[in-house]
């Protein structure tokens, strides 16, 4: 995979560009600020080194009552100008960038009816359990008592809605260009769903079901990594994301559906354990 390099990975989702824009803009600003201050700082260090016969010059502090607040503190206030510039930059960044982009990425997950694909991703120590609703479009019942290494989600196969659910471990297949709603859950501890190419990261919290969405824009094979410490096997908790053409995706779904009701085989419940 040539997805990764010394900089940001390739962009493979609709909002990856928006996030990269922010990262690049801020780093440009940071570099500018650092270089300007650095040059000034270096100049001060050389210019004002101790020299015989040159005493330090104090700034004029007008403690007098004449001149008013602004005039008396002009020197001090002038030195706050850089601060004001940084503040204006930050305000612009918040209002024109952070608020709208955050709203679109994190605050407005699509309604399940509007999403092209709905998939449930359940994190556990140390694997990703992925479930598609199957032909009926409904996620069936799952019970914690039924959890077994052959049935990591505890699916109740007697429930007709659950019987056709498609389960895969550590593999997430998505059609390119389609809006996918991912319902993120955790069985045990806090995990984190991170696909670097999607620029998508979200903690999976037990007891909560967190909706998030992605529109993959590039066919390819990506990595789904856990980014939140989840135990001794944290670094081995990874999965693969396959973004396919819609036809390939449907084909794959059909091939998985044909496997049912075979219990999800040995690949499950393990990230190498």
């Amino acid at each position: 995979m040539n997805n990764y390099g010394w900089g940001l990975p390739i962009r493979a989702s609709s909002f990856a560009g928006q996030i990269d824009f922010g990262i690049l803009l801020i780093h440009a600003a940071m570099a500018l600020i650092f270089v300007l201050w650095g040059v000034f700082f270096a100049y001060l260090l050389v210019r004002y080194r101790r020299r015989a016969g040159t005493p330090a010059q104090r700034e004029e502090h007008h403690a007098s009552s004449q001149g008013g607040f602004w005039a008396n503190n002009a020197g001090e206030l002038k030195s706050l100008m850089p601060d004001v510039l940084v503040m204006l930059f930050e305000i612009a960044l918040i209002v024109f960038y952070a608020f709208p982009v955050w709203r679109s990425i994190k605050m407005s997950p699509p309604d399940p009816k509007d999403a092209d694909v709905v998939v449930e991703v359940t994190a556990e120590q140390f694997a990703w359990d992925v479930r598609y609703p199957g032909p009926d479009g409904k996620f069936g019942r799952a019970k914690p008592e039924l959890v077994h290494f052959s049935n990591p989600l505890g699916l109740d196969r007697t429930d007709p809605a659950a019987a056709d659910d498609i389960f895969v471990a550590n593999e997430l297949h998505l059609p390119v260009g389609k809006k996918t709603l991912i319902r993120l859950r955790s069985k045990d501890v806090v995990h984190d769903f991170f696909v670097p190419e999607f620029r998508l990261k979200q903690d999976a919290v037990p007891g909560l079901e967190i909706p998030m969405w992605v529109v993959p824009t590039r066919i390819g094979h990506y990595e789904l990594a856990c980014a939140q410490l989840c135990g001794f096997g944290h670094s081995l908790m990874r999965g693969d994301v396959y973004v396919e053409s819609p036809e390939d995706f449907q084909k794959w779904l059909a091939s998985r559906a044909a496997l049912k009701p075979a219990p999800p085989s040995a690949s499950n419940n393990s990230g190498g354990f």
Partner: protein
Amino acid sequence: MSNTPDAARDPHRPNVKLYMAVFGALLCLTLLTVAVSKLHLPRPQAIAVGLLIAAVKASLVAAIFMHLWGEDGRIPRILAAVVFFAAMMIFPILDGAFLVPSATSRVAVADQHPDEGGAAAPAAEKPAEVK
């Protein structure tokens, strides 16, 4: 002990009569709050009344027994700042309140208290708990 006029004018001198009056008021309020709970008001009203009475009692203790009434103004100011920071705890509460609707595995305390009837009407119960 101190019957001198000096002591009588001392503003910090403990005022025993006042203490006893507050004592009486506190006991009455305690009985009142228990009595109100016997009325089995609906949750929102019960919580409002219970907290109101508790707040009155706490202010009495703070103002009179802890001498905040007539204390050097700086201590109340310190306390106001502390209360401001304590009020920041509203954010975890707000977070909890926002989160619940999206959470699927809701918590059922009712399992342990079937007699309480909460399980019958969880939806109706909900707003009652907002305080």
